[in-house]
């Protein structure tokens, strides 16, 4: 077996050193009735690399890859071009096959990268400090809610109706097991987000207000207004961003008054991967909140010779020290995805990120205008970045399924996200990135025209 270096003569020699007659003697503490009498039934015996690759390739081919169709899906996961050097660098064995940097003298590569990553995320979000990443945007969102309860010692959580429904569901699920009380809402199909309605729900018991920016329908809420209202009641503003490329074009949440900014970093460097692994981003605007943050933090220090170096720090917040009093039970970050993000962001730089954002927005505007001209289609949004909602005169989910059979991946229907809300059934989220061509846009318009006729 190609992954096992020991030969039978090695095994015999080692058993002799141990003083065991055979391998079974080493499993003597496992009661015989708990041991299988042979290899697991049903599972084939070991297979060659070629045979396994062929099997997996067959399964891979049963999927329609985004690159093989006009593709308009978003809703929290976006398809962007990832430069070839990103994947090359994250596959270097020294990154890929390293562990959590608990021995900093021989992990400066990972640690310096994490310090750079934290600094990039903090700047992108307009915050003072970012952690070294969480599992994904939705779990980061819950962790932010839990942190807000610790900071404010309050427990009423106000969710915007335009927060990604899966994020809201994660928060609701986790809150069942804590003291937090969730005040949610349903999204309303309006051209502008309902800021007034949201602000009216904030009261003196509110620990935090959770707002997505751009929101699930693609709209841009006025964060500064919500921040002022939240702060006036002593609540924190948590802003969720699921498309970091947007922040190359729009003002960062931290600059607009958000206290905690969380989001999904998948757009930069990570790829779609059918939903994971992704990259949870987590940052705080005010450094005084650092000790209430969840997750790993990397910090700068010096070594015994006075040379600059980096270590994991403030670990007394974490489970391996604080045990039942930890800020979170999280025990990893999304290290390799953080590396992919950081490499891609370094390749982009400020100039590249702004160009990328401008190109996304230009194509999204083109798509919105093109689709608005299709009979039976109305564009909902006044504002958007690279994703917007169109309203169809027919059930959007059925149309998306139909179009997929014709080889067009038309977007994410609101029916898929909100199966219980019949009044949203005509809604379709359309995301456009630099990977979308003008031909793709015209193909979508033509396909919709045909289906709506």
């Amino acid at each position, binding site marked *: 077996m190609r992954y096992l270096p020991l030969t039978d003569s090695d095994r015999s020699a080692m058993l002799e050193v141990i003083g065991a007659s055979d391998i079974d003697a080493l499993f003597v503490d496992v009661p015989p009735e708990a041991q299988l009498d042979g290899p697991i039934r049903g599972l084939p015996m070991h297979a060659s690399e070629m045979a396994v690759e062929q099997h997996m390739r067959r399964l891979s081919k049963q999927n329609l890859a985004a690159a093989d169709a006009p593709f308009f899906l978003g809703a929290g996961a976006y398809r962007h071009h990832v430069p070839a050097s990103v994947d090359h660098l994250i596959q270097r064995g020294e990154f890929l096959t390293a562990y959590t940097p608990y021995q900093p003298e021989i992990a400066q590569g990972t640690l310096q990268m994490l310090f750079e990553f934290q600094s990039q995320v903090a700047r992108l979000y307009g915050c003072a400090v970012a952690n070294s990443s969480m599992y994904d945007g939705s779990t980061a969102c819950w962790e932010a809610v839990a942190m807000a309860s610790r900071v404010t010692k309050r427990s009423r959580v106000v969710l915007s109706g335009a927060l990604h429904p899966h994020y809201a569901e994660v928060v609701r699920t986790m809150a069942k097991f804590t003291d937090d009380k969730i005040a949610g809402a349903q999204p309303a199909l309006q051209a502008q987000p309902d800021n007034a309605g949201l602000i009216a729900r904030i009261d003196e018991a509110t620990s935090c207000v959770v707002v997505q920016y751009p929101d699930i329908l693609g709209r841009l809420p006025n964060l500064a207004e919500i921040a002022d209202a939240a702060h006036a009641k002593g609540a924190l503003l948590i802003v969720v961003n699921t498309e970091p490329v947007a922040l190359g074009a729009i003002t960062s949440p931290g600059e607009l008054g958000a206290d905690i900014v969380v989001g999904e970093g998948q757009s930069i460097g990570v790829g779609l991967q059918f939903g994971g692994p992704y990259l949870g981003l987590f940052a705080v605007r005010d450094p005084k909140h650092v*000790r209430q943050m969840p997750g790993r933090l990397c910090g700068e220090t010096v070594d015994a010779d006075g040379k600059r170096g980096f270590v994991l720090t*403030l*670990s*007394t917040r974490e489970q391996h*020290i*604080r045990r039942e*009093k930890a800020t979170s039970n999280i025990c990893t970050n999304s290290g390799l995805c953080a590396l992919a993000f950081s490499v891609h962001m370094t390749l982009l730089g400020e100039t590249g990120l702004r160009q990328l954002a401008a190109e996304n927005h230009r194509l999204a505007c083109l798509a919105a205008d093109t689709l608005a001209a299709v009979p039976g289609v109305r564009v909902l949004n006044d504002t958007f970045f690279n994703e917007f909602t169109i309203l169809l005169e027919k059930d959007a989910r059925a149309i998306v399924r139909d179009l997929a059979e014709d080889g067009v991946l038309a977007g994410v229907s609101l029916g898929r996200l909100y199966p219980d809300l019949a009044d949203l059934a005509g809604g379709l989220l359309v995301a456009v990135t630099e990977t979308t061509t003008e031909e793709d846009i015209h193909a979508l318009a033509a396909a919709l025209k045909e289906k709506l006729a």
Partner: protein
Amino acid sequence: MSRYFTEDHEWIDVEGDTATVGITDYAQGQLGDIVFVELPDVGAMVDKGKDAAVVESVKAASDVYAPISGEVVESNSALDDDPALVNTSPEEDGWFFKLTIGDKAELDGLMDAKAYANFVESL
């Protein structure tokens, strides 16, 4: 003014109706380099024997218990900028917080300096 000690290695100075609380020299020696002290908010009520503050070294976080019940009237803001004061001056400049004394009878079970020295000796 009189000083009392607890078996959890806190000291408490009593002066009139207020008391000052910190951790002992022995405690700071056991903890090593202190990197952070989390202090109770002014106005908070603390209960005898319950968590009142947290003291952190690089690899450990330890709760500091209130030796008596009362209302916190001041916390040592100098520790925010310089937590090392707990190492360099644990029983003077490195004090943690001051509180009102709710019930003087709660002081009865505490040790004096000599008893505490014997207690540490016995560990």
